[in-house]
């Protein structure tokens, strides 16, 4: 059977960095095609090329036997290609129905047919089993998971022949994931071609008929799902056995640098933990279990409202990021570009950012610092937006190293960076720990968390569900994370 979409030889550069290189991809009707790869492997870019949001530098897209060239997402939509984006593309001030039909509002006698729009939306929500969302609700009033549902409904409403989903389950609760499975299945059986982008192996193997693996912008393998194993896919993604990536664990554990007893706020309850010099403590949990909330509480972003907080044995009040920093707590945030870096400023200025902002101190040897994080750049004058994700993350680490923290809270420190940079980040974290810093590391990639941590704390529903020793199995972590016992 001929594919609905055949992408061949797709290449794309951004600002001189090759993001996709000569990638081929076929999408068949009635088939779920999983696209996997690490963050930064080019999955999202490939999808955006398909959706008309980016134009490929080279290569062609053939749709139903005809070569097409999409000038805009609108063109792609018209050709029957719909996208569920990873980041939410919703207008918070508009209603659910308005968002679902954005750009394709039904018109009746010159007016937008609101009744039909709302009825259609209600119908689609029903099909997804989402009875709790009213089409007239303003999107800003919905929780994030429901906003994700709206995002999916939006793609569904396009009557598309091809639907591409970029990590659609990222923000969904478990029962929602099940519904999504059903939905994807139904889409497939109605003859739609589904491109399913994810790095969650379980979903990929549950849902897909075909798997394509991207690594560093090139296609590593493309095969039927039943002809490959999970291990083989992971190896193809990473390019080498994962366990060689991680540095040795700590040999000794020093004094307690940070301690919280009975901490809580609107999202957290009864959090008690200790972080000691020299150790890397992993913090695991499902999406929404409160991992980031712990990070944000320790770092003063959403401060704890109850409980005791000690740094180096001294009780402290951490009510703002500034207070946290001045007590020696560093915070590598999840959203590097949005929260970590001033993208238009130079490497030098970003490295000095915290030092300047929180302490107003004079200069230090920035170059030495940048060498120590193995930064590759064209010089300290280069604007950080031109750096690769990995090097940007190294600048983030450098800006914290510049203030000699006692505690480092690293929220998803390897998100969206390539394998080489990941390894560097792992090494840097371990070096930091060895130098006496206490590290709390959060990651949604369990192998990484298990590989790095000296012990693992598991969150469930805003509470600490338990602690596991180094080298625990993924099953043990998941069991605690889903409310079971260790």
């Amino acid at each position: 059977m001929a594919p609905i979409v055949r992408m061949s030889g797709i290449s794309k550069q951004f600002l001189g960095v090759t993001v996709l290189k000569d990638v081929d991809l076929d999408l068949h009707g009635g088939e779920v095609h999983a696209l996997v790869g690490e963050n930064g492997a080019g999955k999202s870019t490939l999808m955006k090329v398909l959706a008309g949001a980016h134009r490929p530098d080279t290569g062609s897209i053939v749709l139903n036997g005809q070569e097409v060239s999409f000038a805009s997402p609108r063109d792609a939509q018209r050709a029957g290609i719909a996208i569920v984006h990873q980041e939410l593309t919703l207008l918070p001030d508009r209603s659910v129905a308005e968002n679902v039909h954005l750009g394709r509002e039904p018109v009746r006698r010159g007016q937008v047919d609101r009744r039909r729009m709302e009825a259609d939306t209600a119908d689609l929500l029903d099909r997804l089993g989402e009875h709790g969302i009213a089409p007239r609700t303003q999107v800003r009033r919905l929780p994030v998971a429901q906003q994700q549902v709206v995002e999916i409904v939006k793609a569904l409403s396009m009557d598309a022949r091809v639907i591409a989903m970029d990590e659609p389950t990222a923000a969904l609760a478990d029962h929602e994931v099940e519904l999504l499975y059903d939905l994807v299945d139904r889409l497939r059986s109605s003859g739609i071609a589904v491109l399913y982008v994810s790095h969650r192996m379980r979903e990929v193997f549950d849902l897909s008929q075909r798997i394509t693996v991207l690594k560093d912008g090139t296609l590593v393998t493309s095969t039927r799902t039943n002809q490959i194993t999970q291990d083989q896919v992971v190896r193809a993604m990473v390019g080498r056995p994962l366990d060689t990536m991680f540095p040795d664990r700590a040999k000794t554990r020093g004094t307690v640098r940070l301690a919280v007893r009975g901490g809580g706020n609107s999202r957290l309850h009864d959090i008690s933990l200790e972080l000691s010099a020299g150790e890397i403590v992993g913090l695991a949990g499902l999406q929404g279990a409160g991992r980031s909330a712990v990070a944000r509480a320790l770092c003063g972003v959403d401060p704890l409202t109850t409980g005791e907080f000690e740094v180096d044995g001294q009780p402290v009040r951490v009510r703002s990021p500034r207070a946290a920093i001045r007590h020696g707590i560093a915070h590598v945030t999840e959203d590097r570009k949005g929260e970590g870096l001033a993208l238009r400023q130079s490497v030098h200025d970003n490295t000095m950012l915290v030092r300047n902002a929180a302490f107003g101190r004079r200069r230090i040897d920035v170059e030495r610092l940048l060498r120590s994080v193995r930064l590759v750049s064209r010089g300290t004058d280069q604007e950080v937006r031109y750096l690769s994700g990995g090097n940007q993350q190294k600048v983030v680490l450098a800006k914290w190293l510049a203030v000699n923290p006692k505690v480092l809270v690293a929220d998803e420190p390897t998100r969206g960076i390539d394998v080489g940079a990941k390894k560097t980040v792992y090494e840097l974290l371990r070096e930091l720990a060895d130098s006496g810093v206490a590290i709390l590391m959060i990651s949604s990639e369990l192998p990484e968390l298990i590989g790095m941590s000296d012990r693992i704390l598991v969150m469930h529903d805003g509470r600490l569900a338990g602690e596991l020793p180094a080298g625990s199995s993924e099953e043990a972590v998941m069991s605690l994370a889903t409310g079971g016992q260790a």
Partner: protein
Amino acid sequence: MTATATRQPVRRHGTRKFRLTPTMSVYIALVVLLVAGSVLVGMRGGVLLDHGGILNILTRGTVLGLVAIGQTMVILTGSLDLSVAYLIGLCSLIAAETMAGDPGMIVPAVLLTIGFAAVVGLVNGLVITALKVNAFIATLGVALIIRGYLENTYTGPAGSVPRGFQHLGYDRIGPIPVSTVVMLVLAVIVWWYLTRTKGGYHVYAVGGDEEVARLSGIRTGRTIVTMHVLCSVMAGLAALFLVSRLGSGAPYVGTDAGYDLESIAAVVLGGTLLSGGRGGVAGTIGGVLILATLDTIFDDLGVTPFLKDVVRGAVLIVAVALYARSQLARRAR
């Protein structure tokens, strides 16, 4: 996915609690102002809302209303237009000079004026969308260009309007000037366009998040350019109305009244977000009426114009601060 049209979305009306929208608060403020003003003026032995008073408020509100309607449209897309004041001056001259007292030239002059205004709006829009110039700079630049032309070409009022055309500015129905009716009809049409049509939906989308709008297949550039054209056309209409009042074109009729910043103030006072995506024409008209009423009250009270400026500035800041506050409270909930 078909056959759903008949289905009524009965069960999900959500929780429709009463919410004080910015538009409602504008009109509540207007009513409070009218009552307070009536009392104050009454204490000095006058009547605020007599025939003359109503006429006054409406006449004052008309030109600003026209300009502010247009300004609302561009601000909703996340843009703004600083060129309207000079454009009004130039359009008034084009209209008056084309008419040159000849009743037969009314129609060509009106068409020419509106056409010219549309071209200026097109330039504004294209400079912003195609040359990627910040709207502030783009429209300020266009304003300066027009200003230079005016200063260089005109020494004062020019052209003259036939009597027939002056009816637009002077006729009224009871206490309501015809021009106000025209302005309100236009406001209703624009309100309908923004809230009921596809184009209007796209305006809110572009102002809410241009990237989201683009990814949803909306031609964002076209939307912005269209709104700029419409905004300039509204300025052109304001100029036509002014010309009918003045009897001739006047180069600084728009700038003397400060229609550029004043219209932005009215829009923002009416609850439209300066960054776009939220608000609307209904609020703007409320904002315009508040400003016009304030003016009239001050006149009736014999307050010096300098105090008016102080109060206007303070009202503007306080109003926007209150909107920002309610926004915060809502987010925190």
